[in-house]
């Protein structure tokens, strides 16, 4: 199911790099952070599998918008971060 534009989501507070070798495209500074769906970018092969030459199912890629200040605990109100995040890293909030 594709998430609708404007849906509030939370990036999973997950750290697979602590469990062993992996390749992930979700920046550390966004783990556990709340954002909202800005745009559906399409479906792409999961880079976490591609990197290890495993069969890579397609996943929906979203452009997710975050407020900068809550992420860093500093910064100008109203400034934002727009980041490509795969569906399996997002959970409803």
């Amino acid at each position: 199911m594709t998430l609708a534009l404007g849906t509030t989501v939370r990036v999973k507070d997950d750290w697979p790099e602590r469990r062993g070798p992996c390749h992930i495209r979700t920046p550390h500074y966004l783990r556990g952070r709340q954002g909202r769906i800005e745009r559906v970018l399409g479906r792409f092969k999961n880079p976490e599998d591609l990197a290890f030459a495993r069969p890579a199912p397609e996943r929906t890629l979203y452009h997710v918008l975050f407020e900068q200040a809550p992420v860093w605990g500093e910064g100008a109100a109203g400034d934002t971060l727009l980041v490509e995040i795969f569906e399996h890293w997002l959970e409803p909030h």
Partner: protein
Amino acid sequence: MAAPPRPESIALLDKLMAALSAKGIVTEAQIAARQAITDKASPEIGARMVARAWTDEAYRDLLLRDGHAAAEQMGATMAGAPPLGVLVNTPTRHHLVVCTLCSCYPRALLGYPPHWYKSFAFRSRAVREPRAVLAEWGTSIPDNVEIRVVDSTADFRWMVLPQRPAGTEGWDEARLAGLVTRDALVGVGLPKAA
């Protein structure tokens, strides 16, 4: 400028290319073709795309709808390249592109990224203190303008469509393109008419 390549780096690259070729993953001809595409790419192509978008509403629509088609019209070779997304600056929003994970950059269109784009300092600071980083470029964004930092983490590549500067009324496309630098296409700079 980048330091000249070290002999051990060249030897390592030769071994890697030989292994890729031996395993049938990629041929030397394919590597040469990809190099030719990147060598042909240039910020000047991006600048001409911006200038046309400023002067031609239909082209602007195409650019926002299908970045590949718009880039191909201007002479870039986008076959095999990741999708190109265009970030539209407005009077109330300025975009800055960074890749915190590595150095994702629209190479097929703009060519090789500048060395600072790949630096740890730029990558770590741009997402955290974009206003301070931009100030070091001499780029001042008013407080009432949102700075939207675009962290290029996955399958798209991103280019900024800057605003057309004041004082350029009546300019033709070629003259307008001359204002658009690589820095403006990444969002660390702004086109200026003066």
